[in-house]
């Protein structure tokens, strides 16, 4: 049986990951590395793919 908590935990984990990547001291760290201009898009895409995987695998409406 699947529990709602599992899905909420996943949402929370994704939110923490997104905040870690885009709104934390880590953001300053990776931006100071002078990565390629598209690096920020790649990180954004990772978040979107994880959101998509979460919802595509979920049976909830």
């Amino acid at each position, binding site marked *: 049986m699947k*529990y*709602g908590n599992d899905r909420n935990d996943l949402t929370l984990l994704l939110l923490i990951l997104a905040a870690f990547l885009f709104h934390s001291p880590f953001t300053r760290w990776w*931006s100071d590395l*002078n990565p390629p201009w*598209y690096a920020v*898009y790649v990180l954004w895409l990772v*978040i979107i793919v994880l*959101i998509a995987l979460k919802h595509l695998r979920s049976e909830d*409406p």
Partner: protein
Amino acid sequence: MGLELWNLFLIAITYLGVLFLIAYSADVGWLPAKWVDHPVVYALSLGVYATSWTFYGGVGLADRSGFAFLTIYLGVTAAFLLGPHILRPILTLCRDYQLASIADLLAFRYGGRATGSVVTVFMLLGILPYISLQIYAVTESIQVLTRQVPPDLLALFFCLVVTVFAVLFGARHLTPREKHKGLVAAIAFESAVKLAALLLAGGFAMTQVFDGWHAMEDWIRANPQHLENLYSTTDQSLWSCLLLLSFCAAFLLPRQYHMTFVENEKPASLKTAYWLFPLYLLLLNLPIIPILFAGKHLSLNTTPDFYVLGMTLTLGSPWMSVLVFLGGLSAATAMMIVTTLALSYMCLNHLFLPAQISIARPERNFYGRILWTKRLIIAAIIACGYLFYLVIELNQGLASLGLISFVAAAQLLPGVIGLLFWSRGTQKGFLAGLIGGAVVWFAMLIVPLLVGSVQQDTFQLVTSRLGVGDVDIWSVSTFCSLSVNTLLYILGSLLSKPSATEREASKICTGKSTQATPTTATLPSTTEYISQLERLIGTSAADHEVGRALHESGIDPNDTRPASLALFQDRLERNLSGLLGPTVARLAIRSNRRLEQPAEIALAESLRYTEQRLAQSREQMQGITKELDDFRIYLRSVLRELPVGVCSSSPQSDVLIWNDAMQQITGISENQARQSVLKDLPTPWGDMLSEFSRSDDNQRIRQKVSVENTEATFDLYKADVSDPQDTGESTFGQVILVEDRTSVETLESELAHSERLASIGRLSAGVAHEIGNPLTGIASIAQNLHYEDNNGAIEESADDILAQVARINGIVTTLLAFSRSNVGLGSNRDIVDLRTCINEAIQLVRLDDPGRKSVFDVQLDQPLSAHVNSQQLVQVFVNLLQNACYASPPDQPITLRGQSVDNNISVRVVNHGDVIEADKLAHIFEPFFTTKPVGEGTGLGLSLVYSILTQHGGRVSAQSDPSSGTCFEVVLPLAETASVTGNVEELNVVTSQPTDTRQKPGSGERP
């Protein structure tokens, strides 16, 4: 090089015409519904978020603020990441209560008209800068392309064109609900055009400006300061501020609320949008950096906002310029059309109609008035945007206008978060917070915009005195306005008491209650609703709306049952909500309540609604709530799939539950049944179930019903359901079980016939023997007749012959009657003296070999009248006596005792054979259970005895012990016609030796 103005004009008009064609095609069904309703189309339609600010201003913002420009979209991604917890509940509320605007939503939670009006006025003010931004962007883009015509004139012309198309898209005619399939299709198409234009522009920058990817990378390495500038803003306050503002804008801007919630055709589409819309935004922003670098590389003379146009013009690519212009035009027109539609709806339903209701002046042409009011509001909003465009001084780029509106929309965040998660919030608190935040917003962002000279100096003076001199204006204004807003909201709410309506709404919004409010009718008849409405919307409109609601709910106009009226009122209110908004609709219908109903009146509807809400709220359930709901679903499935028909009804006989078996038995669908009361169900079910429901019987066995000219048999059971919330004696209704016995009865009939034929087979040897005896006698007498010359002796011989023939006839008649198949157990009954049946059974048993050797000790009261099927009772006693003969030793008599006891007849058949063990005795009446050796018994005899007696309202029991032998007791109800007092009469004692017995008349035996 520039483009001709008239060329751009023709291209723009043609493009808008194509858009209108797409919208019209979707509206009239030329485009397949599966395309229009596809989740991808829905997700693309949310792309209205990306306006000309994104299309042109994105490059400018990236130039000024680096990668902070992406936070405008990262915040949206965060909002959609939290979609199941924020967007989904709002969508559910929006669909359940027809909340067609952000003002409707907040008015629903925070107590009505004042809230709706304040939110509408504030949103109007807050969005005007955003509309002027679109006008500015399109006008500037035409200026860049043509370098001619005064911008104010261009802006005016653009506003006129957009007004016409906004009316065509959203106010061409009145729709029963605020849904426009055509608009969704057109906006989705515009989003696709925007994406294609920007991606092509990005590709153009990379290939035509830089000669490919590697050349661009080389340029970046040669000019590292540009890349460093991009990454330099990630730790600034602006980064956090824009994340928060775009998070709010994702669902609080009127156009986003409209496209996300109001135009959502299928809730499941939102699940796709959670990831597809952020992906769309990512793709849309991917070309921004290459275009910015291309502009820097070309050292373009235009502002960075219009690098995308300048780049194509500089490289002499008119088609690319036109494509980019169309992309920008798409972004601006889509925003203006959807925003003005959403705002016109808010103005109409929260400013104009409440005023009209207040003065209660019915309109002759109500629909026409509403339509034209809406059109005028659209025109007025665009005109206000144009005026705002004329008075502002734009010196901070396009993004500044958009951000002013974003900060305005963010003022709704405390109220909406409180709506979803804090049930203590009140209207006073919300209004105090909103007005406080709005004042700060106006003072810090609008005043400097209108009076440009005070902007920078005043701001820097204030921020430096506050010790945050290096913080940007957006962060300071957002922080200040939201802090004031939230503080006042919390304080105001804690210091005021929520009204009853607010308490109910807060429970619904926070998911603590699933109770629907429109469950009880307020007026006693449908004609009263016409009278109620015609005072507000005029006679013809009231007639039309009531007629439409009657038609859609399938209610008869003369139906005055409270449940039907509640259904009708619910439909009427939903229809009027689409037209007038929920606040006015509720006011129009419920302002004159004349019918007080107990809460359980619309129990059926309430239960149905509760189930719907539970199903929709499953995603939010956690822990024990989720497990309880799993258990509810499990029990529901058990009930639904039970192979016995289950129907439950409310105290008013409304059908509440109608399971699958019930649908199969009756052919009545669940929907049809649940919209009815028991007695109104189709024949014969309505009469049968309502009569049984009213009766005192708790069960009815073998109820015969004619279904489609075929007789069917049902067992009915019922029980009262106690109210789980009431400890008293009141009931929650009844549950009725219906078991279809038709096929079982047919099988039982066939079983009885088979057993009868088996008995005949066993008796046939005895028949041959018994008929042989009288035939031998007849033959002897006939031979003696040759030698008789005495007439008296001849007559005596003839009498003997006739007696023997009568005996044969009796045997044959009995066998024929016994073998005849009956239509069913317990049928064809008559008043019968059981002694006749027992005698007949003894005669039949005696035809068999064990029966001939047995002695029967019979003592029966006289008479033993019962209302039975005589042939079936003969079968009972034949089976009991055959078993007794088989078990009993030859020297022990088989005792039959019959007497009447307390209105019952008791017949006991006792033999003194082997004792039946207790464990076997418990199963002795089960089919195919036998104590006889294999091959000697079918195991059906006693089972049949049990079935026959049960169907006659009687019973059979068995006892066995060594002292008193094995006793089978048959009990049947005594027929009331008996008139002869019972005397014990010793009938006969029949031995196995015919020569030694005395047989009562009819035995035919001779010494």
